[in-house]
C-alpha cells in the first residue's frame, strides 16, 4: 500500500470478494492482520486472511476456527499459513480486491483444488466446456 493512502480498512476491505490476476474468484476478505510501524506510532494492514477458519475466529468461534484452519492447512501442500495473503500482493482495491497472484498459488483456493482433484475430476464430463 502506498504511503499516506489511508483507508477505512474495515469498510473498504472486509467481506469483499478476492479476485486473482486472471479475474478468477479466490475467496473473501474474511479478516485482516494488523501490524505496527517500526516507530510504534501507526497501525497498518499487513495481510488479508481468507478462509472459513479465519471467518469463524472473527465471529468469535475461536476453537472451531482454529480447528478449521488446521483442516485448511492439511489440504494445502505448501508451507506457512494458507489463509494468509501478504498485503503487498494486493494490486487493486475497488468493489473487489485484486491480488497479483494466480489462483493456483493462493492458499485461499487450496480447498477448491483439493475438491477438484479428489472429487470433481473423477466424474465424467467435469472438464468439458459448458457451451
Amino acid at each position, binding site marked *: 500500500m502506498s504511503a499516506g493512502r489511508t483507508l477505512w480498512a474495515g469498510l473498504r476491505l472486509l*467481506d*469483499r*470478494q*478476492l479476485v486473482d490476476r486472471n479475474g*478468477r*474468484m*479466490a*475467496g*473473501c476478505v*474474511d479478516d485482516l492482520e494488523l501490524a505496527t510501524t517500526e516507530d510504534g506510532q501507526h497501525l497498518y494492514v499487513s495481510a488479508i486472511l*481468507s478462509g*472459513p477458519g479465519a*471467518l469463524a475466529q*472473527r*465471529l468469535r468461534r475461536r476453537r472451531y476456527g482454529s480447528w478449521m484452519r488446521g483442516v485448511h492447512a492439511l489440504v494445502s501442500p505448501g508451507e506457512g499459513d494458507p489463509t494468509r495473503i501478504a498485503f503487498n500482493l494486493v494490486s487493486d482495491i475497488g*468493489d473487489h480486491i485484486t491480488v497479483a497472484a494466480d*489462483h493456483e498459488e493462493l492458499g*485461499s*483456493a487450496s*480447498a*477448491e*483444488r483439493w*475438491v*477438484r482433484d479428489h*472429487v*470433481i*475430476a473423477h*466424474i465424467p*464430463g*467435469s*472438464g*468439458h*466446456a*459448458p*457451451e
Partner: protein
Amino acid sequence: MKKMLQVTLCILTAIGGFVDIGDLVANGETGARFKLGLAWAVIVGVVGIIVYAEMAGRVAAVSGRPVFSLVRERLGPGFGLANLLASSFINFLTLTAEIAGVAIALSMAASVSYIVMVPLAAVVIWVVIWRLPFERMEQLFGLLGLALLAFVVALVKLGPDWGHLFSQAAHPAVPKEETPFTYAYFAIALFGAAMTPYEVFFFSSGAVEEHWTVKDLALNRANVYIGFPLGAFLSLSIMALTTLVFAPRSISVDALPQVALPVAFAAGKVALACLIVGIFAATFGAALETALSTGYCIGQYLGWEWGKHVRPREASRFYLVVTVAVLLGALAVMTGVDPVKVTEYSIVLSAAALPLTYFPILVVSNDRDYMGDKTNGPVLNFLATVYLVIIVLVAVATIPLMIITKGGA
C-alpha cells in the same frame, strides 16, 4: 428472434420460480377453501417481486454483483451467515418439494407411484446441471413451461361468469367455515410463494452468468415486467379453476395431481397432457433453480468461484454443493414425507426470512459507488420501502400464525 429468446430468463424465472410446486399447491388450495377471497395476496406478492427482482437484476447488470455477495458485504458476516443458514434451509426444503413435483408429474404420465420416479428425476436434474449450458437450460424449460397455459384454456372452456369472479376477488371476505387466523396464514403462504427469495438469488446470479451489462437494463425490465405478471396470471387462473370446480363441492386440495383435475374435467385429455408437460417443466425448472441457488448462496458468501458458465473443474466446490443438495433432496423425498406439507412449510418459512434478503438489495441499489447514475428513483424507493415494511410485518407474524393455526389446518 435472439431478443425474443433472451426473455426466456424471466420466463424460466416466472414459470420455474413464480409458478412452481408452491404456487400450484397454494393457489389450488386457497381457491378451493377461500374461493377468490385471497386473490389480492397474489397481486400484492407479484408487485413486490417485480419491484425487488428489477432492482436485483439492475444491480447485477451494472455492478456484476449477485445478491448474496451483497448480503454479506452489507449485513456483515454474522447476519449474513444467519441469512445463509436460513436461506439454505429454505432452498433445500423447496428443492425437496420440487423434486417430488417432478416425480409426481412423471408418475401422472406413467401411472406408477411417484416414489419410484424420484431417482430418475434426480439423475436427470443433475445431468442437466452438469452438462447443459445455462442459456439452453432456460430456453428449454421456459418454453416447455408455457404448456401451463392449459390452465387458462380450461378456465375459458368452463365459461364462468367473469363479472361474478371479479367481484368476488374485489370484495375479499373470510368464509364462514374459516377463522381470521387461517385466512391470514394462507395470505402469507401466497405472499411467500410469490416472493420466495430463491427467485432473486437465481435471477441476479443468472444475470451474472449471462454477462449482463448496463446495455442489458432494457432486457432486465422486459424480463421482469413480462415474466412475473405471466406467472401471476397463471396463478390466478389456477385459483379461479379450483374456486369454480372444487369450492362448491367442498373438495379440498391435498395432493398435486388434484390441481390437474379441473383441467381434465373442463378441457379434456389433450389439455391434461399439455398440463402434465407444463407441471413437469415448471417443477423441473424450479428444481434447477433451487439446486443452483443453494450453490450460488454458499459460493457467493464464501467468495468461491461459482456458476454454470465455468467448467465443473474450475468451480469444484460450487458443483459439489449443488450435487450434494440434489442427492439429499432426492433422499428426503424418498423417506415418504408429504410433498404438499413440505411445500407449505417452505413457502411460509420463506416469508419469515424475506427481510434479510430484500433489505441489502434496496440499500445497494441506492449506492452510487456501485450503481453510478442507475440508482433508484424516488417513486421506486417509496414503493420498495412500503414493501420492506410489509415484509417485516409478515416475517414477524408468520411463526405465531403457524402455531395458532397448526399449519393452516
